[in-house]
């Protein structure tokens, strides 16, 4: 656990160090700013500084004395330097610690709950939990595995990400560098609004309105790429397929990916952009030379966060995906129906009648929890490692300055 207290000290010296060097450079510039000797000016500045500091010290001393007259009379002129604690400090500190601890506790309890209920069911499982595609929990011989669920969950989310990320990058670049100001804000708000639409609406809209529109796309893709099993269209006119769910998921994760990309693109330092423009870069070349390299890690982590959302999305997927008939052979095509972890659990919530059955679903939920957790952690690690302007380049700069000083 890295508390704010733990992280602050390494940052603070950095800040002060750079603050100290800045004025020094300025001083140097000022010092030789004119042919006339300026030492007099500098000296008087110092004098002023001291003069300004002294009254301040006197004032604080007298202030302390005035506040603690009782203490001074008792200790005979000694300053009161004991701990300064106020009720507000303790109260707020306690609240903050409590809140921090509570969050960790909740996460731990969710994990423990999932494990405690899943483990007995997993022990009774008569087939391979990770590699079996059968799902027949309950009864004397429970057999269940997550392979099919895992496949559908991951493939639908990855396709959603592949569709959403390029569009998100395009929208983010349009809003930050192409659109005139009065157009940029409405477009950005419109994309943000997509995040405010409840997922049940996406589900209904997706299956009733959008799926029929997608049918020609599905037919076209399958006739062109049908020789790949992934794109092989099973007979029938089913539109509640993984591909439809993916496209709707893409729309659902578009706002979060766009918002983060937009923020990071807008933060590209003007000096980087001017560097490119001064070389005679066009707007696209400027974006390619300065904005995209600067924003790359942000876009990657935004995509991962979007992926995390897509993995866990329940209601929209539940409504769109048609559950395959139990007798049909399993189909790996994205133009077939299927079930994700979340939609499987939600679909069968009515079946949680025996602990064995419930345990099987909870075990599936646990896998989803772990996968989502891993994806989010990966996003976080990427962000931490390569946040623009992070510690690494700064340290390099200082090391470089040191070597140059030495070589000179």
């Amino acid at each position: 656990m890295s508390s704010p207290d733990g992280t602050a000290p390494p940052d603070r010296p950095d800040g002060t160090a750079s603050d100290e060097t800045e004025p020094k450079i300025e001083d140097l510039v000022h010092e030789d700013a004119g042919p006339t000797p300026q030492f007099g000016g500098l000296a008087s500045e110092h004098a002023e500084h001291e003069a300004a500091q002294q009254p301040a010290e006197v004032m604080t001393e007298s202030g302390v004395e005035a506040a603690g007259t009782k203490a001074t009379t008792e200790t005979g002129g000694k300053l009161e330097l004991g701990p300064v604690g106020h009720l507000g400090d303790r109260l707020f500190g306690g609240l903050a610690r409590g809140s921090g601890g509570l969050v960790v506790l909740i996460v731990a309890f969710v994990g423990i709950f999932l494990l405690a209920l899943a483990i007995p069911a997993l022990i009774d499982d008569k087939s391979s939990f990770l590699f079996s595609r059968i799902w027949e929990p309950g009864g004397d011989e429970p057999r269940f595995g997550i392979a099919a669920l895992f496949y559908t969950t991951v493939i639908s989310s990855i396709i959603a990400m592949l569709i959403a990320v390029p569009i998100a990058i395009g929208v983010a670049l349009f809003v930050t560098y192409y659109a005139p100001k009065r157009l940029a804000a409405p477009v950005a708000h419109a994309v943000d609004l997509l995040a405010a639409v409840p997922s049940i609406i996406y589900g209904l809209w997706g299956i009733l309105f959008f799926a029929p529109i997608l049918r020609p796309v599905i037919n076209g893709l399958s006739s062109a790429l049908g020789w790949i099993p992934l794109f092989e269209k099973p007979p029938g006119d089913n539109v509640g397929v993984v591909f439809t769910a993916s496209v709707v998921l893409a729309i659902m994760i578009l706002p979060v990916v766009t918002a983060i990309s937009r923020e990071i693109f807008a933060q590209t330092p003007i000096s980087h952009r001017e560097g490119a423009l001064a070389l005679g870069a066009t707007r696209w070349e400027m974006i390619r030379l300065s904005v995209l390299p600067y924003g790359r890690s942000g876009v990657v982590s935004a995509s991962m966060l979007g992926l995390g959302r897509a993995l866990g999305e329940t209601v929209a997927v539940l409504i769109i995906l048609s559950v395959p008939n139990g007798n049909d052979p399993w189909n790996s095509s994205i133009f077939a129906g299927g079930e994700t972890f979340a939609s499987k659990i939600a679909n069968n919530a009515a079946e949680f009648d025996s602990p064995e059955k419930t345990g099987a679903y909870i075990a599936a939920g646990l896998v989803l929890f772990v996968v989502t957790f891993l994806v989010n952690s990966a996003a976080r690690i990427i962000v931490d490692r390569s946040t623009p302007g992070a510690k690494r380049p700064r340290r390099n700069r200082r090391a470089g300055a040191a070597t140059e000083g030495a070589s000179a």
Partner: protein
Amino acid sequence: MAKRIEVSGLNVYYGDFKAVEDVSMTVEPRSVTAFIGPSGCGKSTFLRTLNRMHEVIPGARVEGKVMLDQQDLYGNGVDPVAVRRVVGMVFQRPNPFPTMSIFDNVASGLKLNGVKDRKKLTEVVESSLKGANLWNEVKDRLDKPGAGLSGGQQQRLCIARAIAVEPEVILMDEPCSALDPISTLAIEDLIEKLKDRFTVVIVTHNMQQAARVSDQTAFFNLAATGKPGRLIEMAPTKQIFSNPGEKATEDYITGRFG
């Protein structure tokens, strides 16, 4: 490879605010021209109009003419991108592309111009780094990121990047103000060398620097806060620092104000 700049009656506006008023001057080829003046007097703004970099700021516009050997930089059909390919610029803070290697930084301008031949790129990178007095320090680590160099080396890398495309003019906007004195000296030596090949225009707050490196000096000043900046006087550097024509110039260079 060096051209004369003739500016006549130039006004610069940011929206409704007039930042620079009625500047006319001639910048001679293969020479160093320094712009000096107090902060906010419009010298950097004026410098940026010489390669249309001021247009990066929304609402900025100019009136008047900037001629580069008979060609009007603000004429009809002139693309600012094309202008910047012949009038290069070096900024106050070194700004190499942080994710690129030293080699790619220098080659970036050529690549923008469509040069793909590896041999040609290697040649130009070497000659540009030599031209920027940086070759000996970086020749063994051309594939390392440019951001790993010291501030002074980064600034020389930026100069190498600017001269790699063989511009007609190089503009420098306070190129040493973020550097230590030793790095500053290296840049000043370099400016001396650059004027053999290029027209160099430099904005500086450091009057000794202007005196050391420039052939011509232009002094800019404001009539009052909120008023536009003006060119007060432009003359050979020696004359400006020994026998300025205007009282304001004398006051400024002797440190009586600004």
